């Protein structure tokens, strides 16, 4: 016992000692997923950087860019973020150089030229970088309203910034062209409409002025359409005066021919360059203005019927709200030369065309109306679907309501009001009974065989008239008629009447009816027994309890003083034979009588008299008591 206690104490000490040796329990904090980036401050930061540059605070812009580049962001966003601020730093550096250059530059200075290229390049790259950056940042906003306000605000700022940058570059171009000196410069101003229709005349008003220069100046105006096509107009103008130059803008077909992709608005850039000679030195002046070359879609409304019959001409109406004439082509089902139906001119107002199309298949078709680019109009394509349907076939069929047979046929009258060969098929109860072909007969009488009818029946007759000309449809008429077999019907009525009236016949019929009914009922009982599966009880077979069992046991117990009770292997009669030698005759008689009754009770379906059995038991009791 002492040893047990000692072991227990040592165990406790060891556990506690180990526990106290653990002095540091590290609690590890499950790292939770980092929250996503909040784009709003980054948008503000970008806005501040752009504002600083626009205001010329380059040192402040550098500080902002440096702070921005130190921010840690998710990898996809970080790349765009660093690209933007990297380009901004590059731009700041270029703008600082441009400021210095502006003060002292010779005309056509290579340094200025290089700076101009670099500025153009960084402007293009910066514009692309900012657009992608802002687009990526906008995905991080959780609130739609905040996204809308902040993104819109920065987009407007970016647009202003780019516009300002373009102006700065334009100024630098001027510095490149004329140098940094003041005084001997030509000031060029040009004006033109903000929008001009394609194919029309563009009027450019230009003026060249100067404080110190007089005389004549060469004015060259470059008009560039869609950054692709350039027209050059030269004129000599007196310095201090104004002139107007007229330039025909390209039409839609002109631009299409040279492969320019047409749009409703294309940019026009007009650059005017004026040069004059002063004391042997050339002085220049420069101005640039933008405009827009406008094209419109022709306003055409095309009307085509929804359905036509074969060989029927198609009436096409085109309502045109256009200036001048527009060439149009109409195609059937496909826009290619093989399917060209008509080539025409469309004028202002309603233009109607009748198209005669032969051998047009039944079904859906399409009509295409196509106009080419012309003048101030862009190209136009419109399709309308129409259906070619079969000519209707007019036919009437009549059959008598009641037909008495014999003969086993009836006559159906068919009238076809269509000048076409046709085939008539007659079905009686969906069975084809007759098929004939007529070339050109409008009224026909068909003798249609009828099925054998025992007494009376109603038949559905279907008459189908089908044109042999594929351009015509078919028609089906459904009729019905009662067919009466008169001889058989009369015979049946007579037989039935006789049977009903004759006594012997009526008795026989009554007996026969009852037998038939009885047979039917027995048949149904047998089938029920057959159909019902035998009830297989899952429980064990149980014997019926004998009615005299209790009396039997009583009598056996009374007889037990004379003989042993019946063994399991013993029958009742064997038991009685064993008992016989041990009891008197009166008892034998009583026992024999009872055992006979008991045998009947347990082995047969017959009833036994319980009262008699009880009397026997009572008398045996009396004997037993004696």
């Amino acid at each position, binding site marked *: *016992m*002492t040893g*047990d*206690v*000692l072991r227990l*104490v*040592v165990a*406790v*000490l060891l556990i*506690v*000692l180990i*526990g*106290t*040796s*653990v*002095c*540091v*329990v*590290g*609690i590890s*904090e499950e790292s939770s997923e*980092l*929250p996503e*980036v*909040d784009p*709003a*401050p*980054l948008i*503000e*930061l970008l806005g501040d950087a752009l504002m600083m540059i626009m205001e010329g605070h380059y040192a402040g812009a550098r500080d902002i860019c440096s*702070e*921005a580049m130190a*921010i*840690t962001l998710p990898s996809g966003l970080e790349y765009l973020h660093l690209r933007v601020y990297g380009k901004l730093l590059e731009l700041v550096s270029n703008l600082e150089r441009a400021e210095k250059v502006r003060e002292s530059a010779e005309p056509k200075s290579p340094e200025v030229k290089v700076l101009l290229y670099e500025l153009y390049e960084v402007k293009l790259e910066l514009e692309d970088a900012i657009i992608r950056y802002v687009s990526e940042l906008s995905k991080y*906003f*959780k*609130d739609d*309203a*905040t996204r809308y*306000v902040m993104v819109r605000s920065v987009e407007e700022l970016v647009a202003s910034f780019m516009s300002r940058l373009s102006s700065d570059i334009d100024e630098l171009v001027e510095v490149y062209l004329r140098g940094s000196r003041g005084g001997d410069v030509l000031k060029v101003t040009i004006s033109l409409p903000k929008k001009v229709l394609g194919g029309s005349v563009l009027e450019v008003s230009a003026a060249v002025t100067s404080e110190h220069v007089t005389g004549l100046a060469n004015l060259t105006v470059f008009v560039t359409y869609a950054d692709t096509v350039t027209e050059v107009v030269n004129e000599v103008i007196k310095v201090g005066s104004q002139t107007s130059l007229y330039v025909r803008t390209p039409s839609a077909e002109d631009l299409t021919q040279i492969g320019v992709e047409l749009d409703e608005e294309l940019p026009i850039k007009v650059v005017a360059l004026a040069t004059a000679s002063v004391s042997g030195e050339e002085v220049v002046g420069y101005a640039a203005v933008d405009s827009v070359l406008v094209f419109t879609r022709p306003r055409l409304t095309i009307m085509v019927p929804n359905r036509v019959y074969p060989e029927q001409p198609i009436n096409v109406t085109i309502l045109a709200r256009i200036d001048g004439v527009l060439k149009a082509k109409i195609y059937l089902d496909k826009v290619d030369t093989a399917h060209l139906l008509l080539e025409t001119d469309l004028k202002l107002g309603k233009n109607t065309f009748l198209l005669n199309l032969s051998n047009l298949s039944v079904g859906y078709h399409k009509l295409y109306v196509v106009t080419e680019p012309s003048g101030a109009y862009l190209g136009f394509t419109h399709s309308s679907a129409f259906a070619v349907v079969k000519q209707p076939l007019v036919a009437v069929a009549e059959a008598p309501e009641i037909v008495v047979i014999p003969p086993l046929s009836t006559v159906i009258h068919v009238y076809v009001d269509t000048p076409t060969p046709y085939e008539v098929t007659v079905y009686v109860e969906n069975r084809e009974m007759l098929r004939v072909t007529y070339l050109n007969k409008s009224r026909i009488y068909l003798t249609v065989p009828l099925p054998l009818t025992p007494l009376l029946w109603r038949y559905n007759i279907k008459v189908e008239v089908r044109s042999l000309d594929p351009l015509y449809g078919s028609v089906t008429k459904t009729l019905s008629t009662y067919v009466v077999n008169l001889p058989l019907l009369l015979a049946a009525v007579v037989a039935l009447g006789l049977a009903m009236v004759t006594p012997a016949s009526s008795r026989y019929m009554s007996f026969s009816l009852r037998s038939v009914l009885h047979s039917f009922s027995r048949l149904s009982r047998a089938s029920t027994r057959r159909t019902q599966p035998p009830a297989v009880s899952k429980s064990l077979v149980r014997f019926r309890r004998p009615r005299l069992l209790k009396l039997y046991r009583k009598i056996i117990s009374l007889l037990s003083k004379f003989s042993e009770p019946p063994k399991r292997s013993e029958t009742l009669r064997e038991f009685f034979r064993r008992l016989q030698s041990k009891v008197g005759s009166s008892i034998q008689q009583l026992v024999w009588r009872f055992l006979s009754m008991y045998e009947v009770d347990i082995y047969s379906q017959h009833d036994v008299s319980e009262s008699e059995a009880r009397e026997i038991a009572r008398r045996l009791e009396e004997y037993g008591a004696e």
Partner: protein
Amino acid sequence: MVLSRTMILMIAATVVVSVLAVTINVPSTTPYSPYCTGPEGYSELVKILNAVVVYSPADVSHSSDAVILLPLERDLSSSDYLTLKNLVVGGATLIIADEGRYSDALLSYLGVHIRVANYTVLDEVRKLRDRFHPVINVSLGRGRYAEVTTFMPSYILEGGVGGPVLGYTSKYAYADVDGSGFYSLGEVMKEYLIVGSWHVGNGTVVLVRDLDAFSNSLIGEEGNVAFIRYITGLRKAYLVVGGLRLGGVDELKLALSAVGLGRTMRSREFLLATYLLLAAVFAVVRYSEKAR
């Protein structure tokens, strides 16, 4: 079974020593507890400053050479205000870490009238890891700065600052008024004042609107260590825990440390020696009984 008195005494002694050892050595999990070694605990702060942990300002020895760190999660009693005022006026530096408004009454008592706000300040631009960890640019005076990392700090709304220690967020920080964790329209982006200081008598009061800047997870940041070491200097530091919501175990640890058991009970050698001594005594007694 009948236990002898010796046995009972031995078991009792062992249990007492073990319970004391467990109480003192098993770390706490209560946030901001000096006995908590987890990320939210202040155990590293105590180690770095070799600070004395006391429950009440009254336990701080009166000295102009003291730096009192006072993290607050609940109000102090008014008797503490007087004690603290005497300490500060006498020349001590009081550093209050409070994200709520528990220091309002104390500051007012000390003559510092400011307004604070409870909203969390987030900063996506100047941050550590994410915008919930704004990095505060703290001016320590004499041209010295420290970048202190905080976690979801609140800010000083108005009242001006008189002392040299000032800490601002970047100008792209914002107070998350709706608690969405993101900037929402109407929220203001600006520089928020997170750390302020005021001269009171001969001492200084520094208010840091964040409790986590001194926690184990952030105290290891270079800026945070530099900040606390600069303010503390070589002076004796006291960590007053009466303003924290400590659990019973922490308070028991504090009490045991106060009676001087802390050091000895933390020593494994001491504990081992104690158990071996108890076992030796028991063996001797049993042997003598048997011999008898």
